[in-house]
């Protein structure tokens, strides 16, 4: 029993020594405006994506495509100056239909994550 306790103490110490290696996840998409898979009645002026970590402005991008795959965003992807975890891009007046948001986020820890989702502008 005493040996078991000692082993437990040594093991806990060893785990504590290596714990700083526990990495946080990469910059993951937390939410989107318009929301993932949603249908909005009013066409948005821009697409805003909220991530779990601060992003690098120079390498993070959002592209918005219509149902035919044609790019419709204005190509002005920026990180929100007031919130480093928000990536946004302006879009023109979107007609009713399905749109695909394709994003690529580079976190300040240099890690890259990518993804896409659909939203619909209602009639």
């Amino acid at each position, binding site marked *: 029993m005493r040996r078991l306790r000692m082993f437990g103490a040594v093991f806990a110490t060893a785990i504590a020594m290596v714990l*700083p290696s526990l990495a946080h996840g990469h910059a993951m998409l937390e939410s989107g405006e318009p929301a993932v898979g949603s249908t909005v009645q009013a066409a948005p002026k821009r697409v805003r994506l909220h991530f779990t970590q601060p992003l690098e402005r120079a390498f993070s991008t959002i592209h918005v495509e219509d149902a035919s795959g044609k790019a419709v965003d204005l190509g002005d992807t920026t990180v929100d100056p007031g919130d480093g975890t928000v990536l946004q891009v302006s879009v023109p007046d979107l007609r009713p239909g399905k749109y695909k948001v394709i994003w690529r986020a580079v976190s300040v820890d240099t890690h890259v994550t990518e993804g896409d989702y659909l939203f619909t502008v209602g009639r």
Partner: protein
Amino acid sequence: MMTVATVAAQGVHVLAAAFVAGALVFMLLTPADEFEARLSIGSTLDLMRLIVVALGVVILSGILWLWSVAAGMSGYGVVDARVLRAAGAVLSATNFGHLWLARACMTVVLCLALFRDMQSPGGRGGTTTVVGAAMALALLASIAAAGHAAASACPKLEIAVLAVHVSAAGLWFGSIAALAISLRAEPADGDMARFAVGATRRIGAMAVIMLLLLAACGTASAFFRLSGAAAIFSGYGQLLIAKSALLFAALALAARNRWRLLPRLSKSTGDAESRRCALLSLTRNVAGETIIVAAILLLAGWLAATPPG
């Protein structure tokens, strides 16, 4: 997920920087008379030459690290010529790039200090060795700001804790690597045995402080990152347990040095054959400990580049 090139470049960079810092601290901890009496000018310069080679590796791996990160951030392949322009953007507009430039400045100061040291008799220049060791330590510690801690909710605190953690582990590795190299100096006479006992005791005492710092940083990190503890039971956690197992092995070898081989060496100063055997055992044991701690550092680099779960 980081590329293999990034993980490899980062791993080699950490190991080389740790060796430079640890070896310079080892030189500082060795009293001047022992340098003159035991570490002849030739062997001291051998250690210094290895430090210079390691610094070359630091510079080369640092450049490769920047290149691979620029390739990853831009989405180009590592052999794509456009990475050169992307590297410029990384340097001018990203957290990693700004840190890389600051570390490049530290490297320049370290090179100048080592250059002065090389010109000093015995390869040890007092103030310049202190400056070199301080720069090497800063170079090692600043690696902490390049990883996940920079993107955490409380980056300053996490970077500080990780910097101490990386420095402690790096100094442990670098100093025992320098000790292993020094123990190979000839001839294996009574002076060498006394030097070996003194140097191993000094490095052992420093290693205890480093281990306490490692434990303190681990506990602090667990305190403000409780959610991370669950990762121990994931696939990622298996890597962590492997790292813990290696740590146990390194601690076992360190304990063998301290409580078995050193007393044996202390008692054997009169008998040439038993002294030679004791020195050989100690040298092998320290070399084994060095290899295991190097593996721990490489595994730490792999873990830092991998998301949990």
